[in-house]
């Protein structure tokens, strides 16, 4: 039973309604303008499927990379006291506020052919990252990892320390505690972070085009294909956008039902 009933104040209801419209109308526009009659034929165009497959693959690999590096980073930020921790935390969130194109340029300056590490990687291992699928994964990870780190760190901070302390008292090493107590404890937060990270990676545009370029089948992900289709064929761009929308909403809904019911 609500504590105070009565009319919902207009001062909240009106802006809330406007906010909802603002978020939903563009999506409705996409649905309304979609060329439904030619949709099946446009969808099966090889270019669209190639871009979609590449997008899903790279976003998944990027999420794996972010989990591998981001979870330990979040743990260190949440559980280890060290000088400059606040600064490190701020640094981790920089890619969130950085325009992705700037992130792409920064990646080139480090991993590019003339970059700080790129030249060495090329000379030592013959490894070049720009214009490769690996480069796409790297660009997506750079932009998406903060989402994961923030979500997992938040979950770690909110988790009850007493379970970890009990495990330690019972003789578990810090590593065992991490794998057997901490990780299961923060699993919902971890799943939420991974989904956010994946969604952000799937939509990545700026850093990808700057760092990895645009070549069908190798670095042209869905958002790049949408942008390029926009140059000539609005309807194709709408169809591609629609596919991206359906895939991301579909996966978000599916995962939410499975893992995040209480998150």
């Amino acid at each position, binding site marked *: 039973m609500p504590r105070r009933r009565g009319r919902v104040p207009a001062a909240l209801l*009106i802006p809330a309604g406007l906010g909802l419209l603002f978020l939903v109308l563009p999506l409705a526009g996409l649905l309304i303008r979609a060329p439904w009659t030619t949709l099946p034929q446009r969808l099966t165009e090889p270019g669209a499927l190639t871009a979609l497959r590449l997008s899903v693959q790279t976003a998944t690999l990027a999420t794996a990379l972010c989990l591998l590096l981001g979870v330990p980073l979040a743990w260190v930020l949440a559980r280890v006291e060290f000088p400059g921790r606040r600064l490190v935390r701020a640094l981790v969130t920089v890619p969130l506020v950085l325009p992705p194109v700037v992130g792409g340029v920064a990646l080139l300056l480090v991993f590019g052919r*003339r970059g700080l590490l790129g030249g060495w990687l090329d000379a030592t291992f013959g490894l070049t990252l720009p214009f490769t699928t690996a480069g796409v994964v790297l660009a997506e990870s750079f932009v998406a990892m903060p989402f994961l780190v923030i979500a997992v760190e938040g979950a770690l901070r909110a988790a009850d320390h007493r379970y970890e302390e009990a495990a330690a008292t019972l003789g578990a090493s810090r590593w065992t505690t991490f794998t057997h107590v901490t990780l299961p404890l923060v699993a919902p937060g971890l799943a939420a972070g991974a989904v956010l990270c994946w969604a952000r990676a799937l939509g990545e545009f700026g850093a990808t*085009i700057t760092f990895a*370029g*645009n*070549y069908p089948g190798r670095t042209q992900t869905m958002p790049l294909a949408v942008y*390029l289709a*926009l140059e*000539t064929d*609005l309807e194709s761009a709408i169809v591609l956008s629609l596919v991206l929308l359906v895939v991301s909403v579909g996966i978000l809904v599916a995962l939410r039902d499975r893992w995040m019911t209480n998150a």
Partner: protein
Amino acid sequence: MSARSMRTAVAVLVAAGMVAAGLALAGCGAGDDQATGGTEGGRVTVFAAASLTESFTRIGKDFEAANPGSSVTFNFAGSSALANQITQGAPADVFASAAPANMTTVTEAGNADGTPSTFARNQLVIAVPRGNPKGVASLTDLTGPGVKVALCASQVPCGAAARTALDAAGVALTPVTLEQDVKGALAKVKLGEVDAALVYRTDARAASAEVTGVEFPESARAVNDYPIVALKDAPNPTGARAFVAYVRSAPAQAVLAEAGFQAP
């Protein structure tokens, strides 16, 4: 006024303010253009091909100096993106395209005021890092092992021209990237990530501090005409016509020639 009614009044004001702000946001494109559009000159919004960035920026300044009270705002991008923005109703006064095809998109949609006129021509060169470390002298050299090449995507004029030139030369080339506009392709050369890119002579010249432009004979087969037109729904029609006329005048043509454009 009681505290309660005071609160209600404030809340209503806030809500009204938000609605007003929303309406202002929605209408701002048309609103402030009309405010300045009535005076002679006023603000002229020019949508111009990326390859016109340097020369049009200068021509815009000259135009402002020649027409006191006027100000020119540019939107530089790939011609096809601009053509799309215009047909989608972007509030532009003038459209200057790097190829007739993109201009046709605009004229066929009924967005042009009058017939477009060609004001410049441009040709491709091979942009290589300054000093040409790989010794690129022809299109064929671009197919050598370990030579990374950036092209424009075929949807944009520089990409279409590159395709024509490569076909004319009978050279089968696999680029590492297909960039959205000519400046993107040039940037990859400047950053040293590719060994060469096919860009306009004017772009190579504008970046002569970092890149060298290598001329090649087949570029004569892919000359781009640059058309310009005032737009029918221009917020500032007088300014639009004045700017188009200025671009065709002797001082502006001198700026274009200096940038490496050929006269129409």
